[in-house]
Structure formats: C-alpha cells, structure tokens
C-alpha cells in the first residue's frame, strides 16, 4: 500500500506554548483516518501545519514521497485539499462559482487567453464548468448551483466547501469537523458522502468530535492530547483505551474511587 501523507515529528510552538509536539502521522492510499482529542489539543494547528497555513517549527511533511511546500496554494496544487472548521466559502459567489474557483490550480488560461478568448480558452472553461457541475451533483447541490453561497442552509454550505476542495483534484482531503453543527440526518448524509469520496480513491483525514461518526467511519484513529499524540490504532482499540477516556473525561480522583 502506498503512503500518501507522511508527517514526521511535526512541532509547532507559539512563543512559549507548544501547540503541536512531535506528532507523527501516516496516511495510506484510500484510507480514512480520524483525528480526535479534547478542545485545544492542537488538531487544527496540526492541519494548518500540513496545509502551509502555519510553518511548523520542526518536522517534515511529505506527500507521495516529496516534501510539501510551505505555501497554502502550492500545497493545494500538490494534491492536498482542505475544508475549514468555521466554513470559509466565498459568500457572494454562487455555488457553481465557488466550485469553479477550486478548478483554478488545474486550469491555465492567463490574461491574454481570457481577453483573446480562443478555442482553447473556451474548451478549458467548458471542461471546468462540466467538472464543477458534476461535483455539485456528486455532493447533492446540483439544484442550487446558481444560489449564492451565503444563502445556502448550513449543511449545504459544508457540502459546498467539500465540493470546492474536491474540484482541486486532491489525492488527500483534510476535513476539519465536517459534521459540526449538523443534525443527525445531515450527519448521516455526510457519512455517505465521505464513503463516496473514499471510493474515488481519495484519502481522508478528518477532525471530529462526534465519536459515533468517527468510530463508524474511520479505518484508523489518532488521539491528540495537549499537542502530543497519545495513541493511534483501529477504532475498537482507541475506544477501549483507558487513557483516551481519561483524556476526555479526566482521571477519577481518589475520592471517586473510594
């Protein structure tokens, strides 16, 4: 099995605070990996280090064997796409335009082509549009493609963000809390969506607090606590581990046990 992402000893310090401490993570082709941990454990910072939004203080990240660049657009170009915990769409663009922006790295038309509008330009635009429509249908937003992103209901905005990320043709997709704020129906739909993405042989790393979602979906789960990786393993092992329970709920004091 090919390793898609390899993060080794990634560390991020903000002044005196070490947000991420020497974290290793490997993701294989077509795998869904969960990243859990209590609030403030450094999960999102770790994501930011992977995607070039933050420069790690130490450590190395490689994607399919080559080191990932330290700039978000280059990371996306290399094949790692992401979504954000607090949805970050382009609110005053339509759903279709949002996804079309995702095609930016995979298209080439420059200023002269845009002004000159030769046959090549038209072909590329048509291809981008077809691909974007296909992706909107894929995530179930085909009918609202001409709606403004900000006018979409919350669940649809999450889906649209995923469609936009998919439009960059990623080999690895990082989802930051994809079901945050969703009702059970929407969460169930997201499970299906993640499975469908996995079937397109795109590896996924997701941060999540919904444990049923994580344990039902992931092939492997890593637990971050206070910036350090506490453990990593199949969902059943993580679920059964005392240390994980302790990290979330705290250790029983002596009075409790007595």
């Amino acid at each position: 099995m090919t390793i898609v992402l390899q993060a080794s000893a990634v560390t991020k310090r903000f002044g005196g605070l070490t947000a991420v401490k020497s974290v290793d993570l490997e993701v294989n082709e077509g795998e869904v990996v969960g990243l859990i941990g209590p609030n403030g454990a450094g999960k999102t910072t770790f994501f930011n280090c992977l995607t070039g939004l933050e420069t790690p203080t130490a450590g190395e990240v490689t994607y399919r064997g080559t080191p990932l660049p330290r700039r978000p657009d280059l990371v996306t170009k290399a094949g790692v796409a992401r979504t954000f915990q607090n949805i970050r769409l382009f609110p005053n663009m339509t759903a279709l335009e949002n996804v079309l922006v995702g095609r930016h790295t995979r298209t080439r038309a420059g200023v002269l082509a845009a002004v000159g509008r030769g046959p090549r330009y038209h072909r590329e635009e048509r291809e981008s549009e077809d691909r974007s429509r296909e992706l909107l249908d894929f995530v179930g937003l085909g009918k609202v493609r001409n709606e403004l992103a900000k006018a979409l209901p919350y669940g649809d905005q999450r889906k649209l963000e995923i469609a936009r990320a998919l439009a960059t043709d990623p080999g690895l997709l990082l989802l930051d809390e994809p079901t945050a704020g969703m009702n059970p129906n929407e969460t169930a739909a997201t499970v299906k969506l993640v499975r469908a993405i996995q079937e397109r042989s795109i590896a996924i790393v997701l941060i999540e607090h919904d444990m049923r979602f994580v344990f039902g979906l992931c092939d492997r789960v890593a637990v971050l606590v206070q910036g350090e990786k506490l453990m990593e393993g199949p969902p059943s092992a993580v679920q059964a581990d005392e240390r994980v329970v302790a990290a979330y709920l705290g250790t029983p004091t002596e009075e409790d046990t007595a």
Partner: protein
Amino acid sequence: MSVVAAARTRGGALVAPFARQLGLAGSVLLVICCFLPWSTYSGFPGKMLNSTPGGARLYVLLLALFGFLFVKDLPGRRRALGSASTFAFVIALLTMLFIAYAGRGLVNVGSGAFVGVVAALLYMVGARSLPEDDRTAPVRSLPDGRWRAAVESVLCVLAAVAALAAFVIGLGIPSTSIADGEDYRLGGAISLNDLTNESQFLSFLLFLCGLMLALSRMGVIASLGAITKRHSKVLVAAGLMAAVVFPFTQGGDGYSLRIAASIGVFAAAAVGLNIVVGLAGLLDLGYIAFFGVGAYFAAIVSGSITSVIDVHLPFGLVILLSALIAGLFGVLLGAPTLRLRGDYLAIVTLGFGEIFRITVNNLDGSAGPKLTNGPNGVSNIPDLVLPGGFSFGENHNLFGVDLPFQANYYWLEVILVAVVMTAFLRLAESRIGRAWVAIREDELAAAATGINTTRLKLLAFALGATLAGAAGSVSAHVVKVAAPDSFTFLESALLLAAVILGGMGTVQGALLGATVLYLLPEKLRFLQDLRLLVFGIVLVLIMRLRPEGLVPSKRRQREFHEAGGGADALAAPPGHAGALG
C-alpha cells in the same frame, strides 16, 4: 424628530382620504402651468416667456404626466409618484428662485411659476399621502411571438439612442463663461455669477434622476435591463454606434467633442481602476500616477519641441510602450506592498502618487536630471498623423458633414474606451476574474483553494496600471501637454469616486460615474470652488442610499441588500480572523 413624525402622521391622516383627488388636481394644474409664462423678461434659457414649454418647464411637464398613476393603479405607484412629484417640485422651486435671482427680484417671476410651485406641492403631498404600495413592480417581459426578438432588439437600440440623447442634451446646455449673458440682463449690471445656465443643467440633471427613479419604481428599468441582458450584443453594437455617430450631432462644434474626449480618458482610467478596486478589492489611492507615467512617456517620445529627447516614435508603439512601462511601475510598486492589507495598502499607494507628482515636478535639471521640465511640463505635443497622411489636427468632411478636428481625438477615445471595456468584461468573466473576486471575498480561503494570492493581486495591480498607462498616453495627445498638476491626489480621488459612484465591478457604472463627475464641475461652474465639498456630500449620500453604486454589479447588489443594512456590509468585510481557531 418625533414631533416632526407626529405632525406628518396627523397631516397624512388629514389628507389621506383625498390623496388621489388632491394629487390628480395638483398634477393637472401643474401641466397647465407649464404652458403659462414663468418669467416676465425674455432671455432666461428655456423660453420661460412664451407658451411652449421648454427647458425646466418641459421637465416639470414630463414629470407631471406621471399623475396618470393617480387614476390608474399600477404596482409601485406610490413610490413612482413620490419620486416624480418630489423632483417636479424641486425643479419648479429651483427654477422660480433662479428666475427671481437672475431677474433681480420676485417681481419678475411669471404667474406660471408661482402657481406651478403650489401645484407641484399639491402633487407631491397627494402622492406622499397615498397608501403604501402593497406590491412592488414585477419584471415584465414581452409576450412570446414572432416579433418578440425584433421588438426587443429595437428596444435595446432605443435605450442606446436615449442614452446618447440624454448625453447630447446635457452637453448641449451651455456653460457660463465670462463673455456670456449680457443680452438679457435687466438693468445692465453684469454678474459673473448669473447661474442661469447652471439652473438649466441642474434642472436637467434633477429631471433625469426623477425620471429614472420613477421608471425604476414602476419596474420599467428592471424589465428593460432583463431585455438588454438577453440581447447584450445588440446593446453593445447600438451603444458603439451611438458613440461613433455622436460627432455628427454636434453641427461642427468642437467644444462638446473635446469634453466628450476628456470624459473618455477619465472613463478609461476609471474602468482600469475598477479592476484593482472593484474586482480584486485593493484600495489604490495613487492610481493617477500610473496614468501620469503613461502620459509623460508619451509626451517625451512624441516629438514635442519641449521634450529633452528628440525622438518621434509612431503612435501605436508609443501606446504600447506607455502601457508596458506603466505596468512595470505597477509591478515595482505592487511587489513589495501587496502583502499589506486594506488601509495600509491605501496609505502606501497614496504615498506613491505623491512621490510621482513631486518627482516629475523636480526633474527640471536643477534638482535632478532634466527630463520633465518641472512645473512647466512637456507641452506642444504635435498632432497625430497616421501613416496614410491623415492628420488629427485638421478638420475633415465626412458624409457631407463638416467635422472639427476634435472629432478625430474623440473617436480615438471611443476606441480606447471600447478596448478597455472589452478587456475588463472578458477578464471579469474568466478564471482570473473569479480568482480576484475570491481573494476579495476571503483571501485565506482563496489561498487554501489553490490561488496564488500574491501573484494574482500583483496581476490586478499591474493590469490596472497598464490600462492607466495606455489611457495616459492617449490623453497626452488629446490635451497636448503633460504637466504635474494633472496628476494630483485629487485626480486619484475623483477616479475612485467615479468607480464608487457608478458601481464597483461594472463597466457601465465606471462610464456613468466618470461622465457625471466630469460634467458636474464643467457645467455647474459655481461648484468649482466647492467641488470637493459637493463630491463629498454626494458620496456620503450614495453610501447611505445606494451603497452598491448607480449601476451595481449583480454581486454587489446582493451583497448590500440581501444581508440587510448596507452600512453593516461595509463595516464588516469577510472575516480575516478565525481560520486558525
């Protein structure tokens, strides 16, 4: 405030039952008044003495005709009537005051004006006391049928012709100059502040505003907009034709062509600035400097006798090189500064604009190399001569019409504006344009979606500068001189004001904004000293009443009106914080 509101409610309740009758009576009376003399002396522009309505009386008459809405209840009638009657009243009142002022006293105001003002007041009160509209006017379309496409195309052409007509009429109103106006004055005292021409232009402007508002509230403008959108090619062709034909309507007069050419220069620069500000969302306060780079370069290499370099490059090459050099300056300034956001970028660009002006002011051989002749500038730029021997400096006769030489420069401007507009429209609807808008909406998300934000911002900056450079080089040939005072901060501010007034992100908006901002001080001479004050007030009003500009892009309109208050949308640009949470 509450007292006023209470008084209004009480007054409204008193009048409301008779609102229709009152308003109808007012409008009918107003129509009649427009055929009565408004002044006792001849000479006030618009033939205020005889019984054929002209000038302000005609505008009031046309606005009074909206009174038919008191009889026929169409959707949106209260608001439409409100606009028409209010503007009719304001025009009538202003005209009466102007007549009194120019005639040295109320005694010289005709009966028609007095009764007209009262009638307009009744009209307005009647309109404002109508019940609120229960429905807004729908966007109507023509019935399907064989002739639909043809009729719609004709409507597009008519729209272009109407725009041209409005422009021709507005330009045709003479502006006061020192030699004017001795013929009709009573008592013979000459005042330079006579204001009669100004009153003409002002009432025309108010009339246009009132007419457009009333029509838009009846849904006419939106319906027409939908039609022109379906037939955009017809509209563009008709607009271009109208622009090309314009010199033939001027009867050999060069003055308005000169003004129109200057508007063209201003509009081309405004469209270029619109790429930077409207699409990419970068506030550039020193934009005129790029225009200046183009103008100075063109001035120096075009064979002017005052130029220190004795070369005369062909015009095509001059435009190209000016654009490239200005673009290069754009890159030089942009590369280090585009990492700054918002206000900081604005300050740096503001500084660059000043540096440019002061530099060209000093390159006179005493404080630096002799290149720009300092404050005198590079003047006496020779007229353009095309390779075929066609000289731009001579009058020509085309289709039996004598055309002043200014027409040549005017047509050159039409070509420039058309090129700049095409470039803008095509860029806006492309991969690059989408990336710019994405950066404006949320820079961090744009970067994470694979957009090289630094490079694209630089591209917007450089392209804006390139277009400015091209416009500048043409402008140097039109005005025949490049001098430092043409490139002050005021000019940058005016360009920005044109973009904001017209509507960010649209070419029609930039064109309209440039036209209005150029014509206002030209036609309203008393504004000249108060120009900045008045523009400031106009901009504040626009921001308050119509933050998306006169001709907004669809996106802007949605931005400001679906999210609720315009002020909120302005105050809160899409978040910069929070990604790292």
